[in-house]
């Protein structure tokens, strides 16, 4: 955890420095005097102080706690990354395919990655979820969901 804390402390300092420097480009408010750069800079100072406190505290105290590292060889991490990419593709696909087909495909994919073996159950759960969401949002609350090529049917 020591290395992680050093890394996070330095990242905090760099982030604060970016906020401080970028806010210099904000226009000066000649009427109000206190312009749009005031609060970001104030918070950047707070972040600098707490980042330094983290670095100093880490240096002074020997932490025996181990940080959970991210290893791409870990099957769990790989599964999470694949599902995250799947979610991104799902969001893109929804625009073209519409909510129902893309949701069925994505949910079945996710259940498959979570080692559910029954394809019938996967399909039924996905279909019922998609229809329930359409019913609740579009039918009851009148919030339009992207329908894609099914727009003419709903």
């Amino acid at each position, binding site marked *: *955890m020591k290395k*992680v804390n050093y890394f*996070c402390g330095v990242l905090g300092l760099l*982030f604060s420095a970016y*906020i401080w420097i*970028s*806010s210099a480009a*904000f*226009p000066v*408010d000649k009427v*109000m*005097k*206190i*312009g*749009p750069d*005031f*609060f*970001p800079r104030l*918070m*950047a100072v*707070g*972040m600098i102080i*707490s*980042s330094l*406190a983290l670095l100093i*505290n880490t240096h002074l105290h020997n932490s025996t706690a181990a*940080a*959970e590292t991210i290893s791409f060889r*870990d099957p*769990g*991490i790989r*599964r*999470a990354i694949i*599902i*995250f990419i799947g*979610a*991104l593709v*799902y*969001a893109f696909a929804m*625009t073209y395919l519409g909510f129902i087909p893309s*949701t069925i495909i*994505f*949910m079945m994919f*996710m*259940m498959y*990655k*979570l*080692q*559910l073996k029954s394809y019938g*159950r996967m399909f039924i*759960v*996905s279909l019922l*979820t*998609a229809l329930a*969401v359409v019913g*609740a*949002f579009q039918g009851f*609350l009148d*919030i339009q*969901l992207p329908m894609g090529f099914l727009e003419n049917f709903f």
Partner: protein
Amino acid sequence: MDFGLYLTCLINVLQPHTLLVICLGAIGGILVGALPGLTATMGVALLVPFSFGMSMDVSIGMLLGLYCGAMYGGSIASILIRTPGTPAAAATLLDGYPMGQKGEASRALSMSLWASFIGGLIGCGIMTFLSPQVSVFALKFSPAEYFALAVFGLSIIVSISGNNVIKGLMSGFFGLILCTVGSDPISGFPRYIFGQMELYEGPPFIPTLIGLFAVSEILSGVEKFSIGSTKITEKVTQILPTPADMKRCMVTICKGGLIGTFIGAIPGAGGDIAAFVSYGEAKRSSKTPEKFGTGMIEGVAAAESANNGCSGGAMIPLLSLGVPGDSVTAILLGAFIIHGLQPGPLLYKDHIDVVYMVFASLLISNIAMFIIGACGVKFFAKIIGMDKRMLLPIILVLSLIGSYSMRNSFFDVFLTLAFGVIGYLFQRYGFPLPPILLALILGPMAESNLRRELVISQGSPAIFLQQPIALFLMGLAVISLLMAYVSQRKVAKRVAAAASETETNTTDKK
């Protein structure tokens, strides 16, 4: 107070048709509150057009039923899937979700319902008997007082940071910097939007919340998933809290109801702020504050009683001054105007029957919410026992659609996924998420009121020490910080002493 007229209005509200509409409103409110991405404000706004053709008492009853239902309903998603259904339920997830994970979902849900009911009754009672007096107090809030309230709320960051206060402060400052994204509240200058007009109003609150809490938890659940851990076994199934739990939480609930009512009475300060302040107070006054965040029932009780107490509190400035207490009452103001009434001091003078009708409707709405919610507790708790291989995809789809539904925007969906990754990394490396949430709620209020007050005082910060209420709130913030620090030192000593005692016992046994 004309008790005869009040009773007459109560009997009118108890007519079958009005009662049915209130119940339907409460059911709708619970559903709206429970679905991530839908807020009480949205639900009330959607129902207002339906109230055109209804009589005044029926339409107000329906809207208040939905309001009370939604304030409770938000806790269902918080406890079961770590996604606050409404911003006001954000504090509930701190202890509600861990309780669900320990197989105590129905215990958490039943306490949430009970605390919501009692908190709502307290708010209703104060609204009925003390509206004019409380509204005079609420009117004294200038920008200095609002800033001091925000600082007091932000001081809770230390107490909800868990074991690592420094990382909690870093999370809080990250959240406060995030609040500066979007147009500057005074000059309108766009800050850090990188050409994306969707960020002009700042990072949208609900998608950010869903990403940080729900999506990050789903990613973590997917990573740690194993075939043997597909279900959580529910240990207790109950509809109402046990007498022991009720006794344990009664003081917390009463304090939460009072805190929620008074904060709700301040225009612009809503259930989310009230819930966190009440949670912070419950933790501060607890004998075991270190256990908060791990599944303490008092944490759920404090948050829920405050956010439902807020429903009565927010009605106080609306009825007595015509100033809405929060976004929901702003829409209720529209409902009054549709029916040809103008809330304010003249409403008390010319239409006192309408005022008493609102008091009676809120009372019946709270009771309806309680009965309907109690019927659903066991059903809702069963959701946590579902196979995770099916539950995780359902929650992810609901979360993404909830984010989309706010503005019909895919940008919000991608933002949710991005914050999901940020939340996942924050948690993995020991940075708590609740301080970010608190900062997102209070940051805009803090910045705009700080700058307004500094402009009024021409740059002199001494103005914050010259306003009595602001000074009092600042003092409370300092005391809260000191007490949190002292409490953490005591807890650390207690934990160290317990650890060395265990080590001594182990050595003796050898």
